[in-house]
Structures are given as C-alpha cells and as structure tokens.
C-alpha cells in the first residue's frame, strides 16, 4: 500500500471512531506523515487563530494550566479534610490528580515554548552576532517542531491504545483514561502553533533589526 492510501485508512478509522481499526492503521509509516500535516497544518491554523483572537493567544494554555493545578490542590486538600473530619475518602482522589498533573505539565511546556522559558545555557548564544543568534533560534524552532511531530504521533498511539482497551481511571466507574491522555497530543499541536509564532516573530525581529534575545520572565505573559 502506498503512503497516501495508508493515510486514507487512518483518516477513515478516525472518522469511523473505531479505536481497534485505528490502532492497526497507526502502525503504518503514514502515521508520521499525518503527524507532519497535523503539526504544520493544525499548528499553523491555531497560530492564525491566535493572531485573530489575542484572548486565545493569552489565555488558552493558561486556562488548562491553572484549572488543572487548582483542581489538583483542591482534590488533595479536600481528601485530607474528608479523611480526618468525615472519616471518608473518595477512591479517585489519588488517581485523578496525577492525570491532571500530566495535563498541566504538557500545557506548561507548551506555554514555556512561547515564553522561551525552558532551561538553557545561553551564555555563548548571547555573545554571538545577530545572524548567529537568528540561526540558533531557528535551530530551537526546528528541534521543537520535530519533537512536537514525534510526540503528537506517539502519544496519539498511546491514547488510541488506551481507548481500545477501555482503560478506566482507577477508583471510578465510567471515567475513561483516554479523555485525559488525549490532552497530550493536543498540547503538542498547540506547541507546534507556538513554534510557528516564535519563528515568525524571530524572522520579523531579524529583518527589522530588533533585539533577538529577550530576558525570560517567569510569570510573564505570552
């Protein structure tokens, strides 16, 4: 089968909402092609949306991060009160928070790509000329995009595997694990959008003689 016909099989399985068929279809190399299209196409579309709707640009990842963070704190805090005061404990109070942590971690990673807040040794880069700095920023963007494609594909496979096995969150009767896991490929599609945004910003800064490297601010805005 050609790469494009394998791609069609994947798309048909997605549309049919059949996790078993999708799991088999994703074994083909076309999954990487799909990942490439999703990262550039989806990421590009979201980057365009960010430009049109600045409120999304500013608050989309933040919403996921803050909601999941506060939910973790609330569930654990209430779990202790529930145990000591009411001699009771919800069985899901220790299984849902790790999944929320995963959501927060990957949306946080995405947001930090936009802020360029990931830890790095930038002493040599800051002493380079403009062209060197621009080349380094392009290298960062290329590596982030490559990594985003890999993770979109591989985590999507893990999500499909979880869905096809009907994995339920421990301590619950009907909460499916894949509902939470599906946020990881989504976070990496948003990361692809952030990479496209960063690249256009870097290119514009380079063309217009504006400073290329900025001081990272933890707690700053996108």
């Amino acid at each position, binding site marked *: 089968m050609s790469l494009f016909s394998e791609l069609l099989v994947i798309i048909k399985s997605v549309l049919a909402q059949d996790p078993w068929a999708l799991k088999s279809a994703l074994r083909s190399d076309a999954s990487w092609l799909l990942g490439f299209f999703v990262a550039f196409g989806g990421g590009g579309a979201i980057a365009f949306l960010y430009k049109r709707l600045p409120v999304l640009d500013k608050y989309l990842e*933040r919403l996921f991060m803050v909601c999941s963070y506060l939910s973790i*704190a609330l569930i*654990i805090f209430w779990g202790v009160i529930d145990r000591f005061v009411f001699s009771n404990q919800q069985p899901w109070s220790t299984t849902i928070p790790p999944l929320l942590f995963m959501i927060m971690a990957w949306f946080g990673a995405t947001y930090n790509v936009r802020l360029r807040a990931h830890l790095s040794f930038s002493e040599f880069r800051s002493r380079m000329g403009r062209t060197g700095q621009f080349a380094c920023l392009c290298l960062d963007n290329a590596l982030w995009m490559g*990594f985003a494609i890999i993770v979109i594909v591989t985590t999507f496979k893990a999500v499909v595997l979880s869905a096809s096995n009907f994995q339920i969150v421990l301590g619950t009767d009907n909460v499916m694990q894949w509902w939470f896991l599906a946020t990881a490929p989504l976070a990496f599609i948003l990361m692809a959008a952030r990479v496209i945004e960063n690249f256009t910003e870097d290119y514009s800064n380079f063309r217009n003689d504006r400073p290329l490297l900025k001081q990272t601010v933890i707690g700053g805005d996108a």
Partner: protein
Amino acid sequence: MTDASVITLISLGVTALFMLGVPVFLVIAAWVVGCSAVLGLTLDNMGAELLNVFNKGFALLAMPLFILTGDLINKSGIARRLSDFAYACLGWLRGGLAMASLGACGLFAAISGSNSATTATIGSMLHPEMVKGGYDERFSAATAAAGGTVGIIIPPSIIFIVYGFLLNLPISDLFVAGILPGALMVIGMQLACWIVCQLNGWGHLIQFQFNRALKTAFGAWLGFFAIGLVLWGIYTGKFSPTEAAGVTVGFCIIAGLVSWGVNKIAGLDMTKSWEEKSYPEMLVVEGFTLKDIPGITMRSAQITGVLAPLIAISVVMQQILSLLGAQVFITDFLTGLGGYYPVLFAAMAIVFISGMVLESLPVTIILAPILAPVAAGIGVDPIHFSVIFLVGASIGFITPPYGLNLYVASGVTGVAYFRLLKYTVPYLIALISVWIVVALVPEISLTMLPAR
C-alpha cells in the same frame, strides 16, 4: 561505523547543542531520539513514557504543590515576615543581613521545596536591602544563589520527592534525613559569609534587641505554623508528603485570604513596616484576594511546566542509558576501585562533575538509579546515600557552567552571571566541607529518623 561510535557522535552533537543554548529538555530529547534510532528502539516507548511518568505514583504530585506553596507564602507576605525575623536575630553580627538572608532561605525552604523559588524570593526581597546596607552587589547576588541550595535539602524538597519516587524509598524518611544536613549547610554558609564580611568590613551592625526578635517572631507565626504543619504531618505519618503539600497549599490560601479580609475590615495599613505595627496587627500578613490566586498559580504552573517535562524526558534517557549498559559500566568502574571510601568519594565526584554541566533533576534521575545500588553494595545506608547524593546535586546549582541558581540570582538581582561567579567561591568551599562531613558522619542524616 559501530553503534558505539554513532552514539558517541550523537552525544558530542547534543553537547554542542547545549553549548549553543538549545533548551536542556530538547538536548536530552535529541539524544533520546538519536539513540533510539541507532538501537532500533521504537519511539512509541518514549510517547507512552511521557504520559505514564506522571501516572506512576501519587508521590510526584508533591512537587507542583510545594512549588505553589512557595509562591503563596511569597505573595501573602509570610516570606517577608520570616526574613524580618532572621534579620532581627542575626543583624548584630558583622554581615548580619547577608547571614539573615541565608537563614531566611533556610526558613523559606522549610515551607517550599524549590531551590530556584528560594533564590528568587529571598534574592528579590533582600538584595536591594543588602546593597543599601553596604554589601557588594556581586556578593549579595552570590549569597541569594548559594542560599537557594538548601531549598532542596531542608524538607520539603522537590528532588527528595523525585529521588524517593525513582528508588522506591519512603519520602517521609528522606525528608527527615535532610533536616540536620540542611541546617548544617545554612550554618556553614553563614560562617563563610561572616568571614568574608569581617575581612571586607561589609554590612552595618544593628543592636540585638530581644523585643525586636520577639515581635518579628510573633509576626512570622503563620510561617512557623506552616513549617510545623509540614514537619508534624510527615514525621508523625498523619499525611503522606503529597498530602502535606496539599494541606500546606490549603493553609496558605486560607491564611492569605483571611489576612487580606481582616486588613480590609479593620482598615489596617498594609504598607506599614513591622516596626510601625502593633502586636495585634502583626497577627495577620498582607494576604491576597481570590482574584490574585490564578496569577500566583500561573507562576507556579510555569515553573512546573519547565521541571515536569524535564523529569519525564530524563526518565526516558535513563532507560536508554540502562539499555546501553551505562549502569554496568559505572558499577564496574566504581567497584573496581575497591573499599568503602574510594567508592563513596568517586561516586561523589561523579555527582559533582555532572552537577557542573547538567541540571540537578536530570543528574538525579540519570545517576541515582546507577549509583545508589553501588553505594548500597558497599554498605552505605540508602537513606544516608540519598542525602549525600542530593547535597552534592544541590551544590551543582552554584557550579559553573550550568548553575541554575546563578542564573536565577542573576535574573532577579541584575548582576551579570560571570560577575558573581567569584563571590560564590567561599560558599562553595563551605558547602563542599559540609558535604564531606555529611558523607563521613552518617548519624547527621540518620539520627532523627524514627526507629528503623
């Protein structure tokens, strides 16, 4: 070309990426992807692991919660009260303000669990006052950077949580084992600070007043209560470390909201210094409103968004290193040295050198599962070795070229990275001395543990 040669080339390539300023996360990810390709491993394992790391245990959740605690005590004004108390106790000594900032780091670390949060909070709060107080700005920035190292030794500690999670050790025992070594680190750095300030004549002296110490201690009661709550809960086994973190977050939110409400209702002036406040006014801190909480949480989420992905990718790197036989190689090398002390000091040297070029979280995730079994094999208590390992990893926060606290201190104080390096040397000497003492005297780490 053999696999070994290609992997060596990949390792050199990612080192070049690191030197070019590519984020550490991407450097490790590039290595993982490259090695997986050479070894013929499917990348699906990496994708699954990036999801599963967070799902493997409840314990790792303490990390984001203790980071949030740090931001909450900072925003509520509790951290300021703790530093006022530290200054009231130590201001009469030469270099008192610098020593107080180290003491404040210790107190802050006892509620939060993060080195960078400790450096950022205490550095931004006390650096301007130290400069005004006649200290060299480079020394002041170096003090904030060095003080932050205790953030991961004095419990609660993010890296102890990761260490316990990886090696399946009781995190509460690790926390208790860190208390005395952490206190020793603070004292050692204060001694170094005192000597440097004596030699340079830095700092203005204030007279020790019992009333001042008493009033600031009273004002810091919320901070002491939070410290007591964490230690009591963990030490008595009432809560797991994760639950202790959740309870502390809840306590800090309630304390912040109630304080703000009381200030508003009673019409108290929140801008007054502690000297101008009466004892009843000192009962509450500045606090924050409900509207402030998302902003505070966002800041913590951003820090977690840097550290948590780094943990996930480092776990994958560790798995590949195991497949490559790194564990066997290092174990053979260390055991080949023979004897308790050669092995112990060689392991410490590996941690120290790795800490110079890598962030402490990857150092812990990659090296702890390799070195801990070797140490256990020569008879080092696993809890004792965890403290030795992590004190060494914490020193890595102020060792160039990659000393995270140096970057944080440089960021919050505005002193250039390379300018403050020289002033960290006295603190490095003090910390290394304490590290050796902690390694040679297991009782320092083990004496406070419940009967084992």
